[in-house]
């Protein structure tokens, strides 16, 4: 939306929406990436593909790629509530998976 075509109230709402999206991409994206990579490391060990040191190495190295994709996706999806819902859902799944995998080990 072009800023020139907006009323003052619309502008204010637009700015809050942008700020929220930036926070979701940076902080939310980081938290989600951290959780996902921790699960990935545990999963690689649990499946038996790798020892735990290379599993940490691989998942940590992938984290920067995952973070980039998450950040791009946050800005790509039009609806902000949808972004929030998917992120919350994904975080919940990952948290459960992490607990389960930690229990196995």
């Amino acid at each position, binding site marked *: 939306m072009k800023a020139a075509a907006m009323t003052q109230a619309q502008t204010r709402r637009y700015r809050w929406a942008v700020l929220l999206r930036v926070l979701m991409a940076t902080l939310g994206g980081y938290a989600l990436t951290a959780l996902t990579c921790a699960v990935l490391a545990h999963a690689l060990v649990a499946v038996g593909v790798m*020892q735990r040191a290379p599993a940490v190495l691989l998942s940590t190295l992938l*984290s920067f790629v995952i973070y980039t994709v998450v950040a791009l996706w946050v800005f790509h999806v039009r609806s902000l509530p949808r972004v929030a819902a998917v992120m919350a859902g994904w975080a919940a799944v990952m948290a459960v998976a992490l607990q389960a995998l930690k229990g196995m080990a």
Partner: protein
Amino acid sequence: MSWLHTWCGLVCGWLLCAIFLTGSISVFREPITLWMQAAPLEGGGQQPLSLNERLQGLRLAELHLSKTAPDAGIWRIGLPLQTGEGVKVFARSQDGKVQASLHALTGQVLPEPALRQTEGGRHFMSFHYSLQGGIAGFWVVGLVSMCMMVALVSGVIVHRRIFQDFFTFRPGKGQRSWLDAHNASAALTLPFLFMIVYTGLAHFYTSYMPWPLQSLYGQERSAYSRYESELKARPEVTAASDVPVIAGADLVGLAQQAQSLLAQPVMEVLVQRPGHGRATVRFMEGKPDTAATRQMVNVANSVTFDAVDGQLLQLPANPPSSSFASDTYPVISALHLVTFGGWTMKWLYFVLGLIGTAMIASGSILFAVKRRAKSGNEWGLATHSMYRCIDALNVAALAGSALASIAYLYGNRLLPLALELRSGWEIRVFFAVWALSLLHALLRTTYKAWREQLCALALLCLGLPLLNAITTGQHLLLYLAQGDGRRAGLELTCMGLGLLVAWGAWRHEKSRRSKGVRHPRAARGAISGGLI
């Protein structure tokens, strides 16, 4: 995506520009440090020391250390290669440390060399990864690097025709030229840019993303070292049985044996727990010549002996073992720090890094030029002043950070030698000039700010050999005559860059003039300066 690319690029572009520039400069941090220390010229006639002379140096160093630091926890002895170089001895004990340079043949303690106290090229490296701002700066650099990853991917999506654009350049056409410059420089260096940003982040991988490590190894401090030792578990020991054991061998005897095992001159000797029943001694070869090895990972090999009975404890694996776990991180680091391929690769990184800097800067300039033609009205009434600030930040990010870097070298030569904490003042000069550049850009019109700062930059770069000759009496011709390629290379490179900047400033001026003739009215304001 276009929105994201524009704003992400703009907000991070200024810092990224400075980080890219200092990163490119850090490639040559050793020659820079050498130049800044301004050691007196040797006067030539240096000859390589023979093996016996080097061993004599080792014997004298051992004598010196056993007198001055008999109960130290560690001794470190650096052996010289040529006449005129001293034997460096270092010891650390609970009482403190002993550090000296000895004459290789007489063992006399040499006077401290008259070096300028300086951070040297390391300053550029510290700025590059932490903005000289400690932990906070380190995280800011991480965040900005992630933004660059995002801007790169979104940039490839936005400038979809980027690879066709690579063959398009329309100079002297204002906004179109900047778009072409941005696209062409990005397409040319795209693989390098992805590689350098990614390996930069990955170089600090467990610092930026510690959660997988903490989740598997726990939160304690020892977690990282446990992880690292599991990762590195390479079969290194393999003390071969066919090496004869010299019973009760002294340091010199062991050094001879180490040299024959390494097939390289021993450069450093490390004695742990000297004089103790469990003392060990480690002999290290010099830094490998990375141009000669044709390998990505170049580590100095070492041999370790039991210092009491002369038993061989560790040998370099031959051929070197490799695995995903043990080699991935060293390769990533080598890729980022260019510890391979010798000077050729360093030059390639330097040039590509500078083109990357230009790509980032041209993106921000493109934004400014585009908005000047058609305002986006992003900040309502404040839009015009915001555009002014963006223009000023563009000048400070590119011309300013370059000015600060060259001013750092000037500070090294011009600050009084007796100044306390001199190296800190040199760094303050860097930041002060950068701040002044921003202030100047805010006070002058955009066009004049660019012109004046580029001219100043060109003059400072071209005048560097003159400054050196006046302040230290050393100059380019002397360096060349002595065969000191590194210090001569620094001055020649600065002069070359100075000429390049002067040419850019001249082009800028010329294109504005020709625009001014065609559109006399448009050229009046600073706003429609044609190019910048």
